[in-house]
């Protein structure tokens, strides 16, 4: 039954939760290490339902990220569309990877996303961010297995 219709409630729920986690205030020491929750959520749904979630939804999520972070419209959506395209290219193989390898690929993907965003920000305004994005990418990779377990659970509960 659920093969035909995806429960959009779960998708919305996970995206809202990711948005909260993206916004919630962290102590100054921890804030450079915030995982890219929205990007991870987008990648998860791309892998789970590549027929429904695609580049258009990546674009919308990107616009939301632009508003939340106060950057120029289009910066995050551009990066997220590119990452989504890459994910759609490898999703058949990605499912077969063991979790450690998945986490490594996530590190590369979120690294690409952050690199594009930081490069655009540096080009459009003054910025010197150094290598912060590497930390964020590493933490995102470490968070990925937990996120998959939780989201799988949610998707199973609300199928």
């Amino acid at each position, binding site marked *: 039954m659920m093969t035909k219709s995806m429960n959009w409630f779960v998708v919305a729920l996970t995206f809202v939760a990711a948005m909260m986690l993206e916004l919630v205030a962290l102590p100054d020491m921890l804030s450079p290490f915030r995982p890219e929750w929205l990007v991870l959520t987008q990648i998860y749904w791309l892998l789970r339902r590549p027929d429904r979630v*695609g580049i258009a939804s990546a674009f919308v999520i990107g616009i939301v990220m632009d508003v939340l972070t106060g950057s120029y419209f*289009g910066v995050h959506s551009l990066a997220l569309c590119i990452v989504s395209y890459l994910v759609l290219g490898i999703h058949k193989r990605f499912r077969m990877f063991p979790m450690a390898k998945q986490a490594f690929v996530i590190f590369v993907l979120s690294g690409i996303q952050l690199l594009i965003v930081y490069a655009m920000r540096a080009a459009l305004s003054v*910025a010197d961010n150094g290598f912060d994005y590497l930390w964020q990418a590493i933490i995102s990779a470490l968070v990925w297995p937990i996120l998959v377990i939780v989201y*799988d659970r949610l998707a199973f509960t609300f199928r």
Partner: protein
Amino acid sequence: MFAKESLINTIFVQGPYLGYRLAMALIFSVILIVLDVRFSQLDPARNVISSSLTPFQWLSDFPQKLSNGFTFIFTSRDELESELDVMRDRMLVLERQSQKLASVTAELNRLRELLSASRLLDEGVVVTELVGASPDPNNQFILIDKGLNDGVLVGQAVLDANGLMGQVIEVNEFRSRVLLISDNRHAVPVQVNRNGMRAIAYGVGSLDHLELGNVPDTADVQVGDLLVSSGLGGRFPQGYPVARISQIEHHPGQAFATVNAKPEALLNRSRLLLLVFKEQVAREVLSSDLVDQESQNGVLDASMSESLMSSESLDANADSQRSVEGL
């Protein structure tokens, strides 16, 4: 990791023309970026989206509110009483200062009239609360709980109890985004309080220091000097503390010294902030909220009546009030 039943259906199913769709999305993104960087037509759209995201921002602030609430519940009566005593004492001290301030300001303005200089204007302030901070440490802004509905305008200065915090850069219906003075895109014109030397304090992306640009090696600055906003450029009101000089490095053979300053405002700790209104327009919007001190007004009106005030901004009844809401 994925449920089996959806596997078969989704593994071979893929939307058509993936490459084209990516190209479309990229072109559209680039158009958006160019529009947003060059023009301001997208501002209403941003306003709508960020207004509709306000509930989520409110919810994400909830843990902090909750923990504050808990600390309040578990504060003992004795602690609260002693805190109240401290505050009463402090209020007495401050009130004494402001008693003198009224007459000193009036006298200063009379003297300035003798010099045919324009009158010093005092600004109105409105108390506002911090409701969100930037998720990205390289992009230093905060969100405050006043927006278009409260008459907030882009460019208004925001203070905390100790000094200048930043300026409003974006307004939606209920919230405003405030760029902190420490952001590396921000600069504020300042002067040294001791001798009036002017400089510009640049943010460098670190919350605990600003950098003064192009200070001559021989300039009269000392560690510990207070920098106040100079009001040049018309963006920030004059005379609010901005930072205190913390370090001066002289480089022999170079024209300029490296001068660092520590912001006076607690950029990452203050939750109650003051929004400065200096325009008459804004004051009219807010006049119902404000508690005016009429006594000072009277003194200034009398001294004003014969003088040659031409500029509109020097309207007597508009700007000589000291207004405080909620304090």
